[in-house]
């Protein structure tokens, strides 16, 4: 069984991916990559990753967030992050990636930012 569940929702033209579980080396990172590629393949390039259910992430998972960000940018889209746990926020601060990602604590505000 995978360590992560990714559920897709649509809010207007923004695709929200709700992640629940661990984004770590192996299945977790692969599941995120697969989900992003699938959504981009469907022509959806405004993506909001809800990380509120992610209790654990390692450097591979952080790397996958970066890969997702660049893959979406390459398609002319935007990837933003929602509901970072304290641990993820700390890791993004250590890696200086908080300067790269657009991060929101409120879903409505995140959705409004795409307009």
């Amino acid at each position, binding site marked *: 069984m995978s360590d992560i569940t990714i559920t897709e929702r649509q809010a207007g033209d923004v695709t929200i991916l709700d992640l629940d579980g661990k984004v770590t080396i192996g299945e977790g990172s692969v599941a995120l990559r697969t989900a992003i590629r699938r959504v981009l393949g469907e022509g959806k390039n405004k993506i909001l990753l809800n990380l509120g259910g992610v209790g654990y992430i390692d450097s591979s998972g952080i790397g996958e967030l970066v890969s997702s960000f660049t893959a979406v940018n390459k398609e002319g889209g935007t990837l933003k992050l929602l509901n970072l746990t304290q641990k993820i926020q700390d890791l993004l601060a250590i*890696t200086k990636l908080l*300067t790269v990602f657009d991060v929101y604590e409120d879903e409505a505000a995140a959705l409004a930012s795409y307009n």
Partner: protein
Amino acid sequence: MNTQEIKLPSRIESVDAAAEAADDFAKKCGCGDECVYALDLAIRESVANAVKHGNKFDETKDVEISFEEFDNVIEIRVRDFGTGFSVADVPDPTDPENLLKSNGRGILFMNSFMDEVKWENPPGGGLRVKMRKKL
């Protein structure tokens, strides 16, 4: 003094196995939640490095791990049997030109969450990382 040694094959699943062993050892030593998290993250990163970059997924090569607790310190050693590398040559992942690279942050996490991280070239080859965390 508590000690434990394990050998794991060079595959990704060994990262979870090592983390489980580290969690059990840390709890047995009375580690708090923050300490358990630090050890978990550090061992995941070091074993992932040993499997991927050290042993290059060669399952004929083990990853050797030891846990030791003494003087209110937990020491973890992770050894691979690869050709070794110079830690000084690893690019700084926080350098603006490296920020969007998809890898290269494991050593940064190990250094950030452990109190001491040292790299050694043990007799017999390979690379060993020795990490310490105060309880």
